[in-house]
């Protein structure tokens, strides 16, 4: 029985590690590095799920990992010893007709030893734990501030004008993908517009809740350019499962390019094009909530009126994703669906660090656009992502909905809007 348990229940800890370490040790002829080798092996073998918590890609996550793998190892060893002892006892002392055993009531010396021993192990674990807690809370060494705001069920990232981040002259607002300079300590200022969410990019750092009315600080650091998956991890209502995010780290140079592009002035679509019709459809249907910076209408008399979104009149959180540069990000609707086709997405995700930036900065080209999901979304968003977006579900909130309602657009209008959005790059 105990053997069965060793195999099944501690599979993620020691027996697996040692088995794997043996194999890897042979392959890599690593000798004399038993403990470190086992941990490396575990990290090296588990490179599959993008949210794997054992593959740190930045300083903070690395600090956590350096602390946690020895703890897992110790816990695993203790577990194997305890279970092995139990297995020995139940086999050795099973009833085989022996006489009634001696009625021993305990051995205080033995028990005190067996109490002090785990206490000592825990002191050994506790000291680095406490130092790491304080190291991780350090924020004085950050060089770039990004405000992160959670709401049902997407993330907004805004970059205040600052000297940090290589200098930002005017605020940048984006969503879905957190773009940050690689190899730089970035300070995230986390908050929420409605309920509690939790910001988590496992490869870069542990999670931190975003609480309405509070600002929490989280230091982020990515070693190399690349894309890192994450997800909201505090239960936040109906579409909690659909509240994802990705962090994108770019080299300093590429980050400059990205910033410049985000601050580029609005380029209206060519007159008479499909996109120009799309602009009209967009203003008529989308612009109530979704801001496109620089978008304006021109009256017959030549008066130019900027088109300003008023999401607080329609949605509970009072915000909707800014679409000015939608096609520079690869995802939409809370990073739940890709704007890229699967093939194009694969290319970006699998790009080596040195090629990643150029590939990412291409954004979503017409050939790469994932028409299927985007069309479905524009056609009937609540059917695709559960939201309280029907007027009947807004009784308790003074008519405000949560999430994007179905707009009742026809296929022609959808074609036009997609053509328009494709130019938001």
């Amino acid at each position, binding site marked *: 029985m105990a053997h069965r*348990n060793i195999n*099944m*229940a501690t599979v*993620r800890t020691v027996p697996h590690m040692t088995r794997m370490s043996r194999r890897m040790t042979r392959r890599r002829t690593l000798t004399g590095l038993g403990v470190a080798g086992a941990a490396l092996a575990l990290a090296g*073998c*588990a*490179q*599959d*799920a*993008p*949210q*794997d*918590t054992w593959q740190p890609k930045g300083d903070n996550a690395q*600090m*956590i990992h350096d*602390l*946690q793998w020895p*703890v897992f190892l110790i*816990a*695993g060893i203790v*577990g194997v010893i*305890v*279970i092995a002892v*139990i297995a020995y006892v*139940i086999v050795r*002392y099973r*009833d085989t007709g022996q006489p*009634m*055993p001696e*009625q*021993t009531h*305990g051995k205080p010396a033995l*028990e005190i030893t*067996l*109490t002090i021993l*785990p206490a000592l192990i825990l002191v050994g*674990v506790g000291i680095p*734990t406490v130092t790491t*807690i*304080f190291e*991780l*809370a350090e924020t004085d060494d950050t060089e770039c501030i990004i405000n992160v705001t959670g709401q049902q069920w997407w993330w907004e990232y805004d970059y205040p004008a600052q000297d940090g981040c290589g200098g930002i002259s005017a605020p940048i607002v984006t969503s879905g993908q957190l773009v940050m300079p690689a190899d730089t300590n970035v300070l995230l200022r986390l908050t929420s517009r409605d*309920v509690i969410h*939790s910001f988590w990019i496992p490869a870069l750092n*542990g*999670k931190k809740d975003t*609480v309405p009315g*509070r600002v929490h600080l989280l230091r982020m650091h990515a070693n190399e350019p690349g894309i890192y998956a994450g*997800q*909201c*991890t505090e*239960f936040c*209502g*109906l579409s*909690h*499962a659909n509240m*994802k995010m990705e962090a994108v780290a770019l080299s300093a140079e590429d980050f400059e390019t990205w910033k410049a592009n985000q601050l580029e002035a609005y380029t209206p679509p060519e007159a008479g094009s499909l996109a120009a019709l799309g602009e009209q459809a967009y203003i008529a249907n989308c612009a109530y909530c979704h801001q496109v910076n620089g978008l304006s209408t021109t009256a017959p008399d030549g008066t130019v009126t900027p088109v300003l979104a008023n999401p607080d009149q329609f949605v509970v959180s009072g915000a909707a994703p800014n679409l000015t540069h939608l096609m520079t990000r690869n995802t939409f609707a809370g990073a739940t669906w890709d704007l890229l086709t699967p093939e194009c997405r694969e290319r970006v995700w699998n790009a080596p660090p040195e090629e990643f930036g150029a590939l990412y900065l291409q954004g979503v080209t017409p050939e790469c656009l994932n028409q299927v999901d985007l069309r479905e979304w524009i056609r009937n968003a609540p059917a695709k992502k559960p939201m309280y977006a029907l007027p009947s579900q807004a*009784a*308790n*909130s003074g008519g405000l909905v949560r999430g994007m309602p179905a707009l009742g657009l026809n296929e022609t209008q959808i074609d036009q809007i997609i053509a328009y959005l494709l130019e938001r790059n």
Partner: protein
Amino acid sequence: MAIIERPTDPAPVPAVAGSGAPAVVTPSQAYGVLRRPVSSTGWRSWVFTVDHKKLGIMYGVVAMFFFIMGGIEALLIRLQLAGPEGTVLSAGLYNEMFTMHATTMVFLFVMPMAAAFANYLIPLQIGARDVAFPRINAFGFWCFLAGGLFLNTSWFLGGAADGGWFMYQPNASPLYSPTNGVDFWALGLQITGIASLTGAINLIVTILNMRAPGMTLMKMPIFTWMILVVQFLLLFAMPVITVALFLLMFQRSFGATFFDVAAGADPLLWQHLFWIFGHPEVYIIVLPGFAIVSEVLPVFSRKPLFGYRFVVFSGAAIGFVGWGVWAHHMFASGLGPVSVAVFSVATMLIAIPTGVKIVNWTLTMWGGKIQFTTAMLFAVGLVVSFTIGGLSGVTHAVAPSDTQQTDTYYIVAHFHYTIFGGAVLGLFAGFYYWWPKAFGKLLNEKLGKWNFWLMMIGMNMTFGPMHIIGLQGQPRRMMNWTEARAGEGFFNLGFWNRVASVGSFILAIGVFLFLVNIWYTHRAKSNTPKAPLDPWDARTLEWITQSPPKEHNFDKVPTVHALDEFFHRKYEVDHETGEVRKVATAEEILAAEEAQGDKHIHLPSPSYWPIILAFALPVMAYGVIYNRLLIVVGGLIVLLAMFGWALEPSVADDSDYDPPAEGGGTNKELATIG
């Protein structure tokens, strides 16, 4: 004291329940037709009973019903997650399902099932004839049933609670959770909380005041000790959740703003309140399981519990330190590094007394003569599973590591190894061990072993892979998972989610076999013989009486001389050679006890009031949700029941009974001897 020993001379019954002189206000005079429901057969004997054994069995039956419900909810969750983009449940229904799965399992299964064991066994283990406050005991049970049913009616009244069992604010506020589900949750738990609180006071008084002569605290059976610790935890934890639930109710139903950010509140207040209750609750859930195996392991190892004092004090230590670790549920909530460091260290501290228990259980078996009955298998299963759960607990006592693990399936794996592996396996060990005591028949051992192995395999298949899924980054409480984030290698989410789902059904079949076993043992044409008096060669007082025990438990309250009193009456230990000789059988010991049984035993009489009072509470609760008038109606019933209760003597008057049956004698003596 509840047990009234009527003096041998026919003096008036001393009334304690506050009615003044019983000669003036007797029940028949006071209420006319409302006589005491004294019948000892039929459904009335159950519904109006104040007998701790009947209440214990009823707690067990209802808790088992809710266990099945919570299990079905779990299976639906696993069906949804068996493949990517599951569509078995809608997003809303999925959220209701995991909220109610946790709520049901914690509040309506594990806690009341532990109450079932405590109720049934504590008076028997300490040599008492009932609990200190029998009517309050009945009231507690009916509150549990009333609250549990009330809570579950929400399924049919617009949807169950959907905020997770922790019901974080503001997600569970009316704006973000517009159905009445959360109202049902808050009010339902408020009512079941009354059961826990009254039960705790009752058992504390019982254990401290009603032990058999000679049973000092350090001669108390370990089960009773651990249950005592649990009752103190309940006594101090329940008021916290009561306050929290009241704040939540006022927020949702009466427009208060305790957690409303717009009104300047901080929603973290709710988290602190919830977890100051919630963490002691973890020990409230798991210590009864520990209590049970601490009885089962010594019996089937044929040795006393190793380091009884250590186990007692480590249990008490868990009870104390358990209050200082609540914020480890909030390591990611932005507490600041000082708080996180303190709670991280405190959490490591609590691993020490918990480790002591594992060590003592193992050393109890060491050098023993181990018999692998089903009860013993479950007990060993608990020790192994809880070891795994405890060690994964240490990995997230390390707060930075926890910020990677919290709210992922790794945590789900951890607490199912502790709660299922710790509490539930313990409860099943208890079922098999004490079944003959409560029902006079041994459960089938062959079916029992199938029951055990299927549960054990199913449990490890279900919760084992969740370690992997969680470390691979799958968060909890998501209605689906996607291929895009599943990975492809050995640790891919797809494969291990499927394994977990298959495992959950194996686990369910295991549990189902327990029900089959009950049916098999008790079916009409069952050839299962009556259980022997002392089927396991047990060590404690509850076995020095008939199985099932008479209504008054003991003809003569035994006098206690030693820890493991029963064992020491059966066996003589030669302290020089360590040899153990049997000197008496259980039958001989019981016969000797019964020969000198007490002549006049008067038990507290059944009463209408507990059930009336308890079922008035959901009426008020429906009133809070639907119509304030109902609050008044329910309130009036509560008032009436409280007066009726207060004016009712604890022992029925002669006039409450039917005239003597033909052939002389009356049925008034609930427990005549000789």
